[in-house]
């Protein structure tokens, strides 16, 4: 039986690329209903972590469990429970919006998907674009299609990589609400982003990565009390800059 606290469980995960360590001994877990924000500068290992979790990249070592299934050992079972929204949604440009949903339904073997698909189209204001070939959509619209496809099979784990890129203010509000709704429905969610305000609005937990290592991991409340701020965005900013500046000084010192 899957424990509540183990919807995403990462233990001693490391990833090396040709001698370069992108992620080093990372361990964390996400429970149902929690939203974990991955924060860190470029090259911190955020995207590598997300891509490994959803089976795109094999891990070099460690175990990554999605809904109790090891991504490397039982990838199909793990992926059945997973929805992934990449930062740059690459859709099939000869297919319509609806056909993307139909494709996703067939891939995840959903027998009766039309009602859910219609609801998703309506919630993302895509109903009128149902028969539009996706290459004619704006970037924000394509992002919405990718999110609708990822939500269609009602995944227990959802991974977002820069989910708000290219969205207008209305779209941003809509996606944020959708993320909240999914979390309330029991999904474990990880969001990677550079937008601190997004974490402030959504995340229950924060993990700060730098140079492939976890530098802070805890709840928003922990961070606020640690830094002594009442404003979460300022607290995040302070944590972020203290970590990145400290590592800059370390690397400069090492170079002397």
């Amino acid at each position, binding site marked *: 039986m899957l424990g509540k606290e183990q919807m995403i469980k990462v233990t001693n995960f490391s990833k090396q690329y040709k001698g370069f360590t992108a992620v080093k001994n990372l361990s964390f877990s996400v429970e149902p209903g929690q939203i974990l924000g991955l924060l860190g500068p470029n090259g911190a290992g955020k995207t*590598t972590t997300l891509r490994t979790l959803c089976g795109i990249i094999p891990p070099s070592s460690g175990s990554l469990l999605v809904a109790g299934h090891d991504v490397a050992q039982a990838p*199909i079972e793990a992926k059945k429970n997973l929805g992934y929204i990449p930062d740059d949604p690459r859709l*099939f440009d000869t297919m319509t919006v609806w056909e993307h949903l139909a494709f996703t339904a067939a891939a995840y073997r959903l027998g009766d998907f039309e009602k859910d698909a219609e609801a998703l189209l309506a919630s993302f204001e895509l109903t009128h674009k149902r028969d539009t*070939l996706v290459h004619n959509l704006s970037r924000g619209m394509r992002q919405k299609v990718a999110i609708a496809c990822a939500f269609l099979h009602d995944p227990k784990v959802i991974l977002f990589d820069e989910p708000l890129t290219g969205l207008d203010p209305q779209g941003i509000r809509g996606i944020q609400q959708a993320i909240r709704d999914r979390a309330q429905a029991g999904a474990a969610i990880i969001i990677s982003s550079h937008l601190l305000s997004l974490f402030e609005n959504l995340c229950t937990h924060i993990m700060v990565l730098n140079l492939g290592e976890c530098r802070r991991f805890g709840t928003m409340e922990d961070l606020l009390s640690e830094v002594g701020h009442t404003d979460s965005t300022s607290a995040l900013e302070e944590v972020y800059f203290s970590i990145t500046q400290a590592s800059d000084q370390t690397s400069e010192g090492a170079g002397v």
Partner: protein
Amino acid sequence: MDHALSQLLMMRLRGGLRQRFLQLASLRGLLFSLAFGGIIWFLIASNNSSDTSFLGSATLDRQALSAQILTFMPLSMLGLSLLTVLMTTGPTFHFSPNEINFLFTGPFRRRDLILYKFGAYVAGVALTSAFITLIAPPQTGSALSVFIASLLTLVFVQLNSAVIGMSGQALDGSRFARMRWPAIVVLFAIAAATVLYAWVTPDRGIIELLSEFRYSWIGTIILIPYIVFAELFVAPSFSHLAFWVLVAVIINAALLRVVIVLDARTTDRSLIENARLSSRWERIKQGGSFFATQRTEVHSIRRAPILGGLGPIAWRQILNALRNSFKLIIIFAGLAACIAPISSALGAPVTEAHTLMIVYVFIAFILPRNLVCDFRGDLSRMEIYKTLPIAPWRICAGQLVVQVLLAYAIALTIIASALVFEDSVTTQVALVLAAFALPLMLLIYAVENTVHLLFPIKLVAMGRADFEFLGRSIVEFIAKTLFVFAAMAASGAVGLVTFKTMGTTLVLPGLASWLTLTLIGLLTLVALQYAFRRFAVAETID
């Protein structure tokens, strides 16, 4: 032309050359460029050898070749012009989005921009002409005459297409434009009647009829501008060449003038077409087709088949084929249907080694390069496939099935056309060929995709002189051919052994041979699955 634009042109040319040299700096780039150079050297050497001409033209002397050029080149150029009228879409001079942002907002006249673009085109054409000069048969004449003739002819083809396209755009909406389709229908009717007449008249083939048309008074009048360019290739002396060069330059200059005049009337349309073409190029870079649907909306198919996970992948490729490559499939099917009658008319039946080699190049090189309904067009979408809860072998099979069946349908068209037009191809032979064509196509595309996933590369060349790309394409083709021939040899060997041990009937050896080829194809599918699993989606370190 404006001084700044001339400078820009020179800098871009220098940048292009620098890029080529940078390619040579890497080991892979150097090797592929050397491979390309080697193939070109082989073509030149075989062309200069009187016995082993790769192009099979060793038997033609200069006089016979000149006669053929004078007869068929104007006809081909007329055909090209008519095709341009038929498919008149796209901008006549394509400006990239960067050029539009930088140059259209700069202090330049439209005339200067057209001249700038024309200059860039001539520079590219000069390179193509140099290549044609290298591989042209020695009977064609001196290198200088071939170069000049090719250069002027290619410039004419571009300007001629531009004028036709711009005229179409300028007349858009007028009563003349409404006559386009009836005129096309009439031309098609004439072509169909000609083919039918040649079909029912045993002693008069298409070639004879075309030749008669070419030398008739009406044919000569229609073909006058095209004849000038044919004369360039067959000029017997320098003075003749100089005369025809002068005429050709005047024609090209006149066409350029017409382009500049027409451009003023078609600027808006030209901008729209530029944007459309740029977005097409972007899609081509992502594995799309130039012929992809331009529609914004289509009727959505409500459900995708599941078929254990294989269904949605194959379904996606079916939609891709229908909306991305449908016109291309029709063109290739048409070409396939023409192979047997044309080769038969030229006295080189498809059963001959030379023709068989051309058919093989068509099936294993030209077709896969252009018709892309598998992994090769989806490299930028591998993320999606990697995150699907579908077993890798099903994804691989789903990706291959549509491409293989399409290629098989085109192969069947060649076989059917050979059955109709070639006496030596009997029904039994056609059936055997049809049976073996399927595993052969599976083998070809499984190898093609495996190589592509193991060593992924862009699908389109970076300009005319991307020697690394060209070299790699040729090396890939040779490697694939060696593998396919080895598989066919193994299949043949198994058939031979079966025949020697089992008896006189050919059914069992044929079956054993077919099963061997199919088995090798399926084993290659296993290799493809390995390549898919191993494929590293853009290793972004973030």
